[in-house]
């Protein structure tokens, strides 16, 4: 993507991300049927072709697999794929943004690490 994803993520990617989160949260399990393009269109008030694009994106990444005539299902290692992808792409780019901002503000590496350490322990504590 060439645009800054924070400002205006395309809808089909938002759909794909939402589905990924559903899988990560185990709202939908492996080998379970995922929402159809029509269900997503109705839920999000969008054209079904846009919803299909989100589903196909995940199918291309092997998060979902197609069963002819039955629709799309969550693949066995979907969680693994999603976690890896988020680590490598989303987290990386967020770290990049944070680092850039820190450089602009003249915040040093050490100071940044202290901040991250603090946030990390806070976030971990919040989850328990």
């Amino acid at each position, binding site marked *: 993507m060439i645009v800054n994803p924070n400002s205006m993520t395309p809808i089909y990617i938002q759909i794909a991300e939402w589905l990924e989160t559903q899988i990560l949260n185990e709202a939908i399990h492996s080998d379970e049927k995922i929402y159809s393009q029509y269900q997503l269109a109705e839920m*999000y*008030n*969008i*054209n079904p072709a*846009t919803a299909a*694009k989100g589903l196909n994106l995940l199918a291309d990444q092997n998060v979902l697999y197609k069963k002819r005539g039955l629709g799309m299902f969550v693949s066995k290692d979907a969680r693994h794929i999603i976690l890896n992808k988020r680590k490598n792409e989303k987290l990386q780019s967020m770290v990049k943004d944070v680092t850039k901002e820190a450089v602009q503000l003249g915040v040093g590496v050490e100071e940044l690490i202290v901040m991250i350490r603090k946030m990390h322990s806070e976030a971990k504590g919040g989850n328990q």
Partner: protein
Amino acid sequence: MNVVEFTNVSKKYGKSNAVSKLSFTLAENKITGLIGRNGAGKTTLLKMMAGYVKPSSGNITVFSKDPFDNLQVSANRIFIDHQMSFSPLLTLKELLITAGRFYANWDSELAWRLFDYFSLNPDQNHAQLSKGMKSTFNMIIGLAAHCPLTIFDEPTSGMDAAVRKDFYRALLKDYLNHPRTIILSSHLVSEIEDLLEDILLINDGEKYLHLSVEELREYAVGVSGNASAIKELAQQHSLIHQKDMGSGRMYAVMKTEGAAKQALDQTRKLGLELTPVAVDDLCMHVTSKSQGGIDSVFN
């Protein structure tokens, strides 16, 4: 299968061209938005599609037939606009019953549910309705007819924001239940873009572009920052719009095509900021007569 095919279609009113050399096709069961400025030729295009107006030259087929004066085409399409005339002798209730006799796929239950939801009075006359209420009633007919080709020309004119929102949702839900070819023209791109699959943008009677909404969202990119850096960049890219932001800064909208995409990616290193361009802004910029917009009048 293509439901609608326009090949080199022109329409002249007197000496002026309303539509010129327009070619496009509409595939079956898609929702297409017809976007254009006032006077761009939207209504003329839709009226030719409906078979109300004969083109001056070129070829039109709807369901593989010439739509002009064609019974089979007119039975399979419905054209909804704010000028629809209904018999002044019939009440709204009688109009709905009559409409049901005209259209083979008429969904009477949907018609009455919508009628009640929008609190229309069955004993009223169409001519007595307010502009917004007229549009609402026409929209109900357009939806309930379930025509294989459903044409809406500015269906929301006069409707308040709440009714427009309800209409878009009703249109989508009914489309999901009964997929069919729908084309609607509107000025309010931002309100309908999520609903659409494709956008047909016309300008001065000519086709400007016909793309999926998703492609349009990535068609152009906004660049802001140092003016001289942007001007340099603009030499390699098609410039769509530019605006001076003062103190040596400017904002420009450029086309993101092929190889140019990578060059644009480099711009972040030059300290230029890239922002996505909303579809309605893009439609406005590309159909603008001058690159500076209204500001250029005051300079």
